[in-house]
């Protein structure tokens, strides 16, 4: 592990500890320290990605590990953005472990150079936006989970412990929708760039690859979630459950489809 990587990992762990502490003992200084550590961690992580790209002589997401690293980076950036908008620090202890895990996994193996591949800006946008969408959907998954826990505690009339520390259910719902919206917009743009790039490369937009089909389905499912979450029948916990189910498809797309089913996609 290089200095960048170690420093980033330490900052993420520090940020996690501060978010966790802030959950139990709400303290403005600790909350700010949590956000600041994450922010600096993301900066260092950016340099770690640059270093990976330099060693690979390619984009940093050329392999599975680099893809995971970018996933972690975008998840952190999306969360920090959401935290600034909605002030939901109590969600941090649930998101940071994911970031730490993804980041640590992505540096599990040493980076070895690949044959140089120059695929251009369109390809970079296609991949980055799709991974951003996965990150935003991951965040929506975490938020939906917290919403359902809160809802369960409230309905059982047992609101104790951390119940009082979590953001209000209305805020969780709005954060979740914001996150899913970011994911849908990023995925729509990412898929569009992918189609244009495929057209330039192969001369046709659509190749019927399983990844294309599953990605479009995910887009439809999350758009449906955004629409249904404001409807009479679905608003509230049903929409949160739908959000959880949608995430199963995201994970399916990111793992099984990428590794076993897709002909053109590998790690993104």
């Amino acid at each position: 592990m290089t200095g960048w990587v170690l420093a980033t990992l330490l900052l993420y762990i520090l940020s996690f500890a501060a978010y966790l502490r802030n959950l139990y003992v709400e303290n403005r200084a600790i909350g700010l320290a949590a956000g600041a550590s994450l922010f600096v961690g993301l900066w260092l992580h950016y340099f770690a990605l640059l270093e990976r790209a330099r060693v690979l002589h390619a984009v940093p997401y050329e392999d599975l590990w680099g893809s995971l690293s970018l996933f972690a980076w975008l998840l952190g950036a999306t969360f920090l953005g959401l935290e600034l908008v909605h002030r939901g620090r109590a969600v941090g202890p649930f998101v940071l472990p994911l970031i730490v895990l993804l980041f640590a996994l992505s540096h599990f193996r040493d980076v070895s150079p690949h044959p140089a591949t120059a695929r251009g800006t369109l390809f970079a946008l296609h991949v980055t936006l799709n991974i951003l969408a996965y990150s935003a959907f991951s965040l929506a998954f975490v938020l939906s989970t917290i919403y359902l826990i809160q809802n369960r505690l409230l309905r059982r009339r047992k609101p104790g412990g951390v119940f009082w520390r979590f953001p209000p259910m209305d805020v969780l719902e709005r954060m979740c929708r914001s996150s899913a919206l970011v994911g849908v917009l990023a995925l729509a743009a990412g898929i569009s760039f992918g189609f244009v790039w495929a057209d330039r490369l192969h001369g046709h937009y659509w190749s019927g690859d399983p990844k294309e089909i599953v990605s479009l389905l995910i887009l439809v499912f999350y758009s449906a979630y955004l629409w249904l979450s404001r409807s009479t029948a679905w608003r509230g916990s049903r929409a949160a459950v739908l959000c959880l189910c949608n995430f199963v498809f995201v994970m399916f797309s990111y793992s099984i489809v990428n590794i076993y089913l897709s002909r053109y996609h590998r790690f993104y």
Partner: protein
Amino acid sequence: MEIVLLGLNHRTAPVELRERVAFSPEKAGRAATELRERGVLAETLVLSTCNRSELYGVPQESAAETIPQLERYFASLHELDPAVLGASLYHHRDHGVVRHVFRVAAGLDSMLLGEAEILGQVRDAYQAAYDMGSTGPVLNRMFQAALEVGKRVRTETEIGTRPVSVAFAGVKLAEQIFGKLSKHCALILGAGTVSEQVVEHLRDRGIARLLVANRSPERARELAARWKAEVIEWEKVEGALAVPDMVVSSVGAEQAVMSRAMVERAMQSRANRALFLIDLGVPRNVAPEAGKLYNVYLYNVDDLAEIVEGNKRARAGEIPRVEAIIEQHVLKFQAWQTGVEVTSVLRDLRAKLAQGRNAFLRERLSNMEGLTSAEQERMAQLAEELLERLVISPFEHVRSERDLRKRIADLDAVRRMFGLDQEKH
């Protein structure tokens, strides 16, 4: 530099006695002035709330002599026979006072453990005393530290976070569902003491709109005027349920005022937006089955009481952490206090030694012949240097080393050892 405290509180005196010894601002000012003018106290501060009447001071004489004087003054000021106050009065000295005021500011000495209001009352009492000039370096330092303790325990522990009244628990639950209440609406059905408290908390938390319905139209109008709310006719309550986000019901009725079917229809008309029902009625005003409907959160008075009990236990569980913070600040105050005392002893010691040295030199030099004035001056200088090195320097050490200061328990012993008692007062 001693500190004394004399007073009574909700633990030692019933409300009948507490109300007789309450200090109005005028009375507090009078006490502060008279006690200083009579030479009883050098610094004074009166803390008077509905649960306590306390007199803090730095005595001119020793604390042991001052406390009986304060007891007599306390009784005469409130025109009471000292025997009536009897066992209700308590007094503390020095670190006992410091610990006590820190506990008061932290809410540990309050009737409702960890309540926040006391910190504001301590701040106001200190500000009033400071403005009239009755505090000095000791009470200033102690009360500033008390305010810091109060603030710290409320940010670093959960002593004051969880609601411990049924009404506030209901409002906090509403905030956990809807977030800030400034864009939300509440409907109050009927009227009761707890409903009244809920309305007060809702107003404090900035509720956007309040609706009131009562079986008696006159009563509804009266409540609406008092709460600055809008009146809903009793017959139109069901239709109006599409609007409010929370309903607080406290109606004296044999049968449920809101049936499951009624709430179900309301949920359809409000497109399933979450509805929080607080049922304070006994018998219950809302059919329990209504709580099973989607996006309906129903809490009755027992549910809220159970939450309150849990929260009280959680607050009590925080006491050791609060005590630890208090002890940190007591030690810090002790170190400061010893530092100030060391400086005072040092000043007196230096004066005493200078006096002794001059007398000694006068006596001895008068017997020595053949010394020029330059030589005499040189000898005086050497004597001063010797005293500085042997006696004063160790004291400078004490002043600069906090740990050493903590170990010196009684500086009065040093005063007596060097015969500084006369210089003290």
